[in-house]
């Protein structure tokens, strides 16, 4: 019931956000047919023919209504730029972005939480190194990390390819490792920080101190009381960061020339390619909503009290 309600709310959010995006695109300067002809001087007749073909002269609400009713029937429309079905266009791009985001998420979880736990549990030099590393990781912008990784591991050492997203599972993994690392770096740094703080707080909390005092083995205290409890704030932050990856993937997609959604979105916005922008906006919003929903469900799994609170 709770999940259903959340999903319905998500649909509402999707409609509102797509309307906002549509309005913003409509209001932005420039016109798609001018971009189509790429700054070439063409006759007014040709421009008129293009406007006619794409119904660019219809009033604003008519265009939005037509778009919305078509989407509800499963038709996302045609790209203005290359006259392709948006569905086909996205079907080619989605796997790259999804694999990139999945790989980054994995890196954030393993690297971020793993290092955070180590730094939280161990004091001294290990903690200092992780702290320093996370500061650097957070401070380095994604595009710079991409350039750095590329020039060291692709150009310098030749271990990884310099562009492209590969075909087949292993090839794709090989192609996407550096981009995913560059994309995950700042988030992993934040997650490591938060994990470390949460672990330290839990270690000093009354129930942990009490458990240790009662003679419960340190390992069990760590696993059952410290790590599990500290995962509540950590899962929120991981969820938010993973959801943000989809939108943030543009920078690495551009730097590594990956055929993902991010690059498609940016070119589509530049060209005022309505149908494509709308479809990607929907995917981004839906992705964000679904990941947040999953995080909330994960909450309930970590802490049973959370679930009962929502059900009431």
């Amino acid at each position: 019931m709770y999940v259903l309600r959340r999903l319905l709310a998500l649909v509402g959010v999707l409609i509102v956000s797509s309307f906002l995006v549509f309005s913003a695109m409509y209001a932005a300067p420039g016109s798609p047919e001018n971009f189509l002809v790429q700054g070439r001087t063409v006759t007014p007749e040709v421009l008129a023919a293009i406007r006619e073909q794409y119904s660019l002269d219809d009033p604003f609400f008519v265009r939005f209504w037509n778009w919305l009713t078509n989407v509800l029937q499963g038709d996302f429309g045609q790209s203005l730029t290359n006259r392709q079905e948006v569905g086909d266009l996205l079907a080619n791009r989605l796997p790259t972005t999804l694999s990139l985001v999945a790989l980054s998420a994995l890196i954030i979880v393993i690297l971020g939480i793993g290092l955070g736990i180590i730094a939280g549990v161990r004091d001294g030099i290990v903690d200092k190194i992780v702290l320093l590393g996370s500061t650097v990781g957070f401070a380095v912008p994604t595009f710079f990390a991409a350039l750095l990784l590329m020039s060291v591991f692709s150009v310098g050492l030749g271990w990884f390819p310099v562009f492209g997203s590969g075909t087949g599972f292993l090839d794709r993994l090989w192609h996407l490792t550096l981009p995913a690392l560059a994309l995950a770096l700042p988030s992993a740094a934040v997650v490591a920080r938060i994990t470390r703080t949460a672990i330290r707080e839990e270690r000093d909390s009354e129930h942990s101190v009490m458990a240790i005092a009662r003679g419960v083995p340190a390992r069990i205290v760590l696993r059952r009381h410290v790590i599990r409890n500290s995962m509540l704030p950590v899962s929120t932050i991981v969820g938010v960061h993973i959801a943000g990856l989809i939108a943030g993937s543009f920078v690495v997609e551009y730097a590594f020339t990956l055929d993902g959604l991010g690059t498609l979105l940016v070119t589509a916005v530049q060209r005022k390619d309505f149908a494509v922008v709308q479809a990607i906006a929907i995917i981004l919003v839906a992705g964000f909503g679904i990941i947040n929903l999953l995080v909330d469900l994960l909450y309930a799994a970590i802490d049973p009290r959370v679930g009962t609170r929502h059900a009431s």
Partner: protein
Amino acid sequence: MKKKNVAVGLVAAVSLALTGCAGGGTTSPAPSLSTDDLLVTTPEATGELDLATWNLPFGEPASLDPIKAFNYPENTVVANLCEGLMQLQPDYSIKPNLAESVDSPDASTYVYTVRQGVQFWDGETMTADDVLYSLSRQLDPAEGSYWAGGLINNVASIEKTGDWEVTVKLVEPDATFNSYMVTPIGTIVEQAYRESAGETFGTPAGGVMCTGPYSVGDWNEGQSISLLRNDDYWNTDKVAKTKQVDINFIVDSAAIANALNTGAIDGSYDVPLGALSTLQNSTEGTLNLGRSLQLVAIIGTGNGAFADPAVRKALMLATDREAIADTVFEGTAQASRSLIPNNGWAYGNSEFEAGREDLTPTGVDIDAAKAALEDATVDLSQPIKIVYPSERTYYADIISEISNGASAIGLTVEPTGVPSAQFGAFFSDPEARAGSDAFVTNNYMDVPDPLAFLRTIVGTDGSQNYNDYSNPKVDDLLSQAAAANDEDDRASLVNEIQDIAMADLPWIPIVDPSVRLFLNNRVTGVPASFVYLYYPWAADLGASGK
């Protein structure tokens, strides 16, 4: 010129000996590029290759339909797929191609004898009907050709006048018409295929059907497109040397530099300025500089102080264009002496070279600039707004150099960046231009004919005449030149037009960028001159034997 490695091929040597040196630069000792150094082609390939990789630095083509191909990405690909009635050669000469011959009894009539025995990729034979259909697509507004207007408006009729003959008649005589048959205006597609493909023609789903040395293989959207060798190519002397060419769409200049410098990609035309420093020192390959038809210029909109020819003249004289060529373009461009890119002609060589010598040299002359400014009749205190697409930062560098020159003579120049979607409108929408005084252009001649190029800029109805320039004398000279059958006569008439254009300066020419071609050591053969938009360059690409 220690920065560039110039590999001079045999053809290059021969052809450059013919063109000689037209470099001015008498007022400045700056090491500006002389035309002698510019290549026409690269050394011929010695062997075949199974696979070569290429890059399109301006991104993915939007369509493969020839009539929608009017820019670098589309034309660079389509040139290998679809062929014209005529073909532009690396030395800028024009040869019959899908036409066996052309006969022009006068400058208003062009009779094309269609070549027999030419097959489309699907094995169908090309007929005069395909030719008639393809040429007529330009006239049909529903087809939406980007090439419509200008030259096409002057077409009176296109008719099939024999089993293997198609005749084009023009309203006004135009000696440049035939040279446009090398462009998509003269490109032939299969009628039956075009009609059945409908709206998908030219897209990754629908593709195209042409006669060229390559056909379309996999189109991996957002990433690359494969060209596959046409083993049954009609011109058996020119069958492609490489079995498959994968063309990538990498646009980031750092990524391009890395891909070329590691050998992940074999070659690219138009390598971005940001990649030059890496590529000039590459051990993996060579940066070749080729003869070009390109021009970077500032176009007046007819507004503000820039509307006064005296102001434009003063700005040109005060701007250190040689510095722009040397720094912004890192020595890969020449300061422009004329609105006609240097060596941008296929006839009248001695006439054009002599005409060029009469023009003002390219060096800075502040005194002359100040003198020119005295003739100005406008309010000189108003800032001059020059618009550029903000994604292309090198324009900002160019405009800031112009601004330096302007302040030396008491003028103010303001660079204004706009997003490229908005910038595109400057070329077709007068309303978009309304608020600004000038905008930048990276222009190129469609065909190596100065008449065809100048006509678009200074003709009253010129397609690139953005400031309503109109001079009855120029219009008269343009029609005379278009009707002139003798090429030297035409060249000397064009020189007269050039003199007026360089005095009135509807555009301020800044630099002539050379072709920037990077080739890995293992490949060679492609032309280095600016013909890759219409000439099947990939068919010449092969192994260097190194």
